[in-house]
């Protein structure tokens, strides 16, 4: 039996976490849940305790990359075979976790849940879709693989990738960069269709002013990773 860890990064998600945890329980699968509370300013920590889910409360705010890497370090230390990232804001439907895990079991190193393959469910805003198309093409150009939803944080990884991410994970806006990084290190990546929801509470970590910084930073990260092909292990 494969040990599966769900890594749920959460920053001020006290309102959406109870619904998410309930949905995970409703799947009837025996997943271990780990919430990474990234130094939230609301009562996320109390909510985790009330829900009786295992949680790590970081003493300082590390941002999404540092929070998720904590989950991978935990998964590595506790000898998990599969780790699945699920956003704490309720955008990702836990019913698809099984599909992601099935693809890991058939030998993929990372499986990404894409909202654009079937085109069903919440499709993100127009401006974000332009950004996503740009990253699709950039990744295609640099690595030759077609990823329809490179910014999706709904992903499952196998043991080899857990060990890889334990030693290096990008600090901010990690999703597109990790695709290029894994590809350049000869990992197998697969996408499967999922339906996503519009976030119920809270705001996206990327607002209009930050989006320009986001585009430049992620582009630089992708290009540097692709050209210099840094070997981590």
């Amino acid at each position, binding site marked *: 039996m494969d040990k599966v860890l769900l890594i749920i990064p959460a920053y001020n998600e006290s309102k959406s976490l109870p619904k998410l945890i309930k949905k995970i329980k409703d799947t009837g699968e025996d997943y271990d849940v780990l919430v990474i509370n990234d130094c939230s300013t609301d009562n996320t920590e109390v909510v985790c305790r009330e829900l009786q889910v295992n949680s790590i409360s*970081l003493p300082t705010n590390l941002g999404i990359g540092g929070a998720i890497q904590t989950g991978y370090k935990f998964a590595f230390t506790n000898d998990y075979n599969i780790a699945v990232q699920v956003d704490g804001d309720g955008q990702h439907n836990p019913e698809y976790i099984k599909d992601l895990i099935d693809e890991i079991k058939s030998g993929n190193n990372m499986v990404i849940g894409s909202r654009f393959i079937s085109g069903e469910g919440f499709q993100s805003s127009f401006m974000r879709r332009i950004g996503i198309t740009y990253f699709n093409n950039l990744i295609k150009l640099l690595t030759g693989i077609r990823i329809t939803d490179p910014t999706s944080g709904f992903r499952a990884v196998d043991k080899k990738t857990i060990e890889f991410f334990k030693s290096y994970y990008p600090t901010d806006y990690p999703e597109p960069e990790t695709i290029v990084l894994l590809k350049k290190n000869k990992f197998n990546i697969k996408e499967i269709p999922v339906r996503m929801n519009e976030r119920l509470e809270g705001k996206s970590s990327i607002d209009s002013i930050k989006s320009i910084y986001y585009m430049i930073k992620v582009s630089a990260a992708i290009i540097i990773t692709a050209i210099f092909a840094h070997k981590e292990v």
Partner: protein
Amino acid sequence: MDNILRLFIIVGTLIFAYIIINMVNKRKLQLRYTLTWIIASIMFIIMAIFPGIIDFVADVLHIIEPVNALFLIMIFLLMLIIFSLTKAVSSYSNKVKDLTQELGMLKNFIEEYKKVGKNIND
């Protein structure tokens, strides 16, 4: 180079170097990060005492006014110092991240351990 400017650089740099070395001595600054400043100070003093160096640099780089060569050298040294700081910040940011993650996992482990202990005692 003008004598007043040379005197100004020498006196100013000596005062600056004295303050820095004093702070290192009082353990307020780490020698590791002040070494770049001390080396820069020594270079300024050497250039002020032997202005021929600046004239030579200006000549080689086709800079008309030697004082502009002085500015160029100063900017170059400052950039080196700032770069060393960028490097230090990156290194600390990584260390703080690793420590934060480690501390978070340790806190989690202790909480879980306490729960298990409680169950046994009951």
